[in-house]
């Protein structure tokens, strides 16, 4: 099993990691016993994602997909962000090993959960 350079880059230098105090949207998926947990924090103005942070407990693939998907939704409209698929995320990372594809689903789900949280609070 070998990761692409892009995966390794996002894993070693994750973009947008951390937390946002009082986020407009917050999502958390996964569970420690499965070996992966992901949190997404969103700052949203006029349905545009103005800031995003993540925290991830998981493998390199989970961390890298979290990192790149935050980049992919930044400055996007929430409806656009909702369309982000795990396939698109994996492609943006120049692919993931087959056994690691499922980790990218987590990022997609966490973002959806955060946006839904935002929607429900509106």
């Amino acid at each position, binding site marked *: *099993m070998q*990761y692409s350079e892009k995966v*390794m880059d996002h*894993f*070693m230098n*994750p973009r947008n*990691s*951390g937390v946002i105090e009082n986020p407009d949207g917050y999502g*958390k998926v996964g569970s*420690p*016993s*499965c*070996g*992966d*947990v*992901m*949190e997404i924090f969103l700052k949203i103005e006029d349905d545009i994602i103005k800031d995003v942070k*993540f*925290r*991830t*407990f*998981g*493998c*390199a693939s*989970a*961390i890298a997909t979290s990192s790149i998907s935050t980049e992919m939704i930044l400055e996007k409209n929430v409806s656009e962000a909702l369309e982000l698929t795990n396939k698109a995320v994996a492609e943006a990372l120049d692919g993931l090993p087959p*056994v690691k594809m499922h980790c990218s689903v987590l990022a997609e789900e966490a973002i959806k959960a955060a946006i839904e949280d935002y929607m429900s609070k509106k």
Partner: protein
Amino acid sequence: MKVYLDNNATTKVDEKVLEAMLPYFGEVYGNPSSMHGFGQESNKAMEEARKTIADILGVEASELVFTASGTESDNMAIRGVARAYKRRGNHIITSCIEHPAVRNTCKDLEKEGYEVTYLSVDENGLVDLEELKAAIKRETILITVMHANNEIGTIQPIEEIAKIANEKKIVFHTDAVQSAGKLKLKPKEMGIDLLTISGHKFYGPKGMGLLYIKQGTRLGKVITGGGQERKRRPGTSDVPGIVGMATALKAAVAHQEEECKRLSELRDYFEEELLKKVPEIVINAKGAPRLPGTSSVTFKYLEGESILLSLNYKGIAVSSGSACSSDELQASHVLLGIGIPVEFAHGTIRFSLGKYNTKEEIDYVLAELPPIIERLRMISPLWGE
């Protein structure tokens, strides 16, 4: 700096071992089963190697069979007994922390109608002799418990297990892949009937295994073919591999005590310093007799792969769980077996030291590791909750 701390997965072939092997590729290349001079010369080298190992183990050369791996030896022992003693019974006892070569073979035999008891272990990975005694029944034909564990290093009370097996006239097999060249290994004195060794764990070649079969122990066949190895293991003999394994074992036992001491001290130093530098970690199996160079550390709130890859970035090679299962995503059955909660099992790293590791290397790891853990914990949602 490059630091290889994955010596339980495999080791570098010792230069002297390679040197000993070299003539058997292109010079003395005959098939040891051949009657002519080319074959007899190879045969002589093979039998000398067998004698070398027999002397080290204190057994007869005729009791040793060369195989192609620890895995093959384990299969040969377990499947062999299962088949040969089928009429006597169908019950096998093993521990819950065996290597997949033993564990998956037992699981496979369950499908064939054998019944297997997986003994539990305590938090240090030790089996309970009372539980073992209670598990024995009339149908028990085999007890297979590993000598030293590959993930956490726990050394089982093999001689006591053997005594129980011998009293009940049950065949006793032990997977000594991790202990060969490191711990005392005298099958006759220790009451062992079948014993597995693998060459590449003690600076010998990959693809070489050995099974000690105590005279009189019956084994069914796993692989069939020609008459090599006294009809016990067919296939053209891998003479360079055989010579290499014998040379490596000889070298390992020659410095066994000093090296054990050195490695234990280095490992203990590593663990003590690590405990000082990194909070919220657990050293596993610390309360049991352990392999000298093995250190299993649980870094709470983290996932092993991210630590492994971050260390790799710094040139440091370690393993999360066992190498054989690193393509598997499940938490290690060994770590779960000693009662580590699943989420912490995921964050466990094995540092396995070997004869080429130095204190300088350990200091390098001790310098690089803490910031990595800190960085990863910063982005972990479980940290500081």
